[in-house]
């Protein structure tokens, strides 16, 4: 057991933190959000230069051979600044599907383009009717000669509006909620028959609803097998749970700092409101929530390596419960301690609150995961 970062990891952490500290203050973020894509392409290039876009991919595929801890480090730093760029969508979600299940040919073609920043991905899996049931896939893929024809609708696809290449799930066989029979396909965003409606999300990021009407792709578009795409999605979502938990920890850390700074300087009744014990204790509750979430983000990071899907599912569900609940405590107390200015768009704290809320909602909220965990029998055996 060892919680220390390696020398390389420490360097990585320093360099990402320095980049966002330099380039991602609150005012800059506002400017990036107003750019056409809703984020900064210039920053994206800098991420590529820093090496973080290719980080988790194998060196032989054109990546940098980083592990889950490296992703944790990056996501935490990005979370501190509420970074808008599609790192999660491209590297963790879309890229993750390739990393976990892509063929050597697919990986070697695409990953170098991800790493150099010239290709953005999105994972189009969720559908309007699915709610949080990952197995509910109504979109279909039918064989058509050597290739496939895709039909159906995807919704809330994170950064789906600006992605170049989509990883799309579709059902090849089985009932609409069957565990088997789902496949993943690489679909260019400009494929014929594919339409996208892009919109802002509540936290200032972007997403898209996608319709597919007779979208044709070749045989080489299939990622992995014809029937086990759902297992890949589950694995990638687990990676994303670990990654967004780290992002949430970064956001909570910064939200706590902002709040403590604010109550140290805001004066009422002739003194800083940070002198009032009831407010101090609310700040302490934020700190406690943060540290508990940090612990679980580390735990989830470790458990992304776990090969037993059930064990992994327990760990990820538990992490979501803690991170979701901690996020609510930090977000709500942070706004409350800011008072009136906390609910204005001009103060950063509200944006942290919104992002923390949306991280919770993204792959099933804390209570949803509590149900999953309890149905799996919890973490400890009876004795």
């Amino acid at each position: 057991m060892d919680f220390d970062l390696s020398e390389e990891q420490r360097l990585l952490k320093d360099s990402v933190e320095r980049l966002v500290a330099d380039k991602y203050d609150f005012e800059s973020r506002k400017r990036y959000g107003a750019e056409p894509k809703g984020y900064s392409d210039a920053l994206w290039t800098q991420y590529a230069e820093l090496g973080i876009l290719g980080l988790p991919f194998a060196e032989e595929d054109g990546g940098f051979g980083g592990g889950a801890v490296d992703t944790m480090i990056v996501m935490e730093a990005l979370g501190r600044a509420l970074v808008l760029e599609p790192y999660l969508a491209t590297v963790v979600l879309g890229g993750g599907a390739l990393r976990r299940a892509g063929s050597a040919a697919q990986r070697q073609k695409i990953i170098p383009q991800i790493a150099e920043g010239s290709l953005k991905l999105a994972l189009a899996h969720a559908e309007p009717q699915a709610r949080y049931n990952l197995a509910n896939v109504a979109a279909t893929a039918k064989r058509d000669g050597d290739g496939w024809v895709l039909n159906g609708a995807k919704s809330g696809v994170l950064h789906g509006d600006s992605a170049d290449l989509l990883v799309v799930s579709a059902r090849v066989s089985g009932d609409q909620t069957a565990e088997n029979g789902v496949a993943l396909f690489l679909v260019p965003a400009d494929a014929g028959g594919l339409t996208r409606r892009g919109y802002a999300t509540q936290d200032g990021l972007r997403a898209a609803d996608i319709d597919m009407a007779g979208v044709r792709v070749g045989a080489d578009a299939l990622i992995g097998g014809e029937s086990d795409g759902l297992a890949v999605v589950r694995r990638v979502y687990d990676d994303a749970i670990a990654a967004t938990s780290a992002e949430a920890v970064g956001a909570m850390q910064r939200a706590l700092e902002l709040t403590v700074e604010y109550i140290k300087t805001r004066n009422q009744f002739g003194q800083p409101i940070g002198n009032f014990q009831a407010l101090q204790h609310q700040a302490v509750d934020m700190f406690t929530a943060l540290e508990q979430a940090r612990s679980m983000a580390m735990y989830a990071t470790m458990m992304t390596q776990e090969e037993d899907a059930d064990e992994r599912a327990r760990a990820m569900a538990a992490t979501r419960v803690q991170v979701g609940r901690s996020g609510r405590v930090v977000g709500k107390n942070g706004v409350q301690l800011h008072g009136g200015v906390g609910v204005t768009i001009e103060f950063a704290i509200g944006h942290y609150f919104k992002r923390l809320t949306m991280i919770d909602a993204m792959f099933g909220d804390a209570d949803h995961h509590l149900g999953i965990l309890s149905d799996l029998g919890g973490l400890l055996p009876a004795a």
Partner: protein
Amino acid sequence: MDLSFTPEEQAFREEVREFFRTALPEKLRAKLRAGHHVSKDEQVEWQRTLNKKGWAVPHWPVEWGGTGWDPVRQYIFREELMAAPAPEPLAFNASMCGPVIIQFGSEEQKKRFLPRMANLDDWWCQGFSEPGSGSDLASLKTSARRDGDFYVVNGQKTWTTLAQHADWIFCLVRTDPSAKPQRGISFLLIDMKTPGITVRPIITIEGGHEVNEVFFDDVRVPAENLVGEENRGWDYAKFLLGNERVGIARVGASKERVRRIKLLASESRHGNPPVLENARFREKLAAIEVELKALEMTQMRVVANMATLDGKPDPASSILKIKGSEIQQTLTELMVELAGPEALAYQPHGADGRNEPAAAPEWALTSAPNFFNYRKVSIYGGSNEIQKNIISKQVLGL
């Protein structure tokens, strides 16, 4: 002690309900139920409908347009209004400035302002908070210097709700800078069209424009617009804030929201089982219902005691704000949970060109913005921390 409504009270409730059923435009009802704000025109039109019926300002004296209803009937009316749901009469006119003028204003002020207030011919807003004076209201700095028949006002107000619509603002201003903080404050009525007033919007976290900053730069206000005595404004403000108490629990609004959540959660969407079949969701909702029922009973106790306590506040009234805001916030949060992934999309009213419509229903799209926006209810009107300080001191004697 009899905690049931009398047959007369039941009949009154039916009468009110029937009026709302027929007089309230369906479009307005639908808008409120979807979680949207009403426009200025809609608010004005509705308040005039109420005023025509004689119900715009039920709690005012009959001579100024009130109804003469006892507290229980006023309570029933308010409950039914929120249950409809219908827009509430503009609080700044009906519950805040109006009662102050009735209690402390001159005969001329009453004649000049009250009828127009009741009919929403004038839209009022409230100028109390300042950037440096939130919880510590008595530290306010906006000054009014006497200059002949005028006061010259300089300073800044903030959190001024719907100032963008307002014709008039009632302000706390400092008229004696040398007195103790509470002693040098006056209550002044200011025409928003007076030169030197600038209104600047404050955008709230969900992107809405409800509140504003109001700047005063050598604004000349006729001295006749002073309410009551100079330097007694703090007393009038305390009277005003005391009046807010009962309405602030917003029990009726929360009941309406519970019913709405139940309806939405009992519907099968996209062929999935209704969310209400999930025991956890159902129990969370039931837990809020219990709190809400308890708060409703608490509110009824306060209302019923109004007659006997003769103006002295019921100690139980002090929990209305705290519990009421907690319940409202939890309900908005439950709505987000109900919307699930459909809460994700942000759809600003004034589409900014880069947003295409998401395939989610209106109530789901407004769920997260309402959750975000409702953080305000534990902050404004005396934060819940301030409320607890007050109970600690005034009720528990700590």
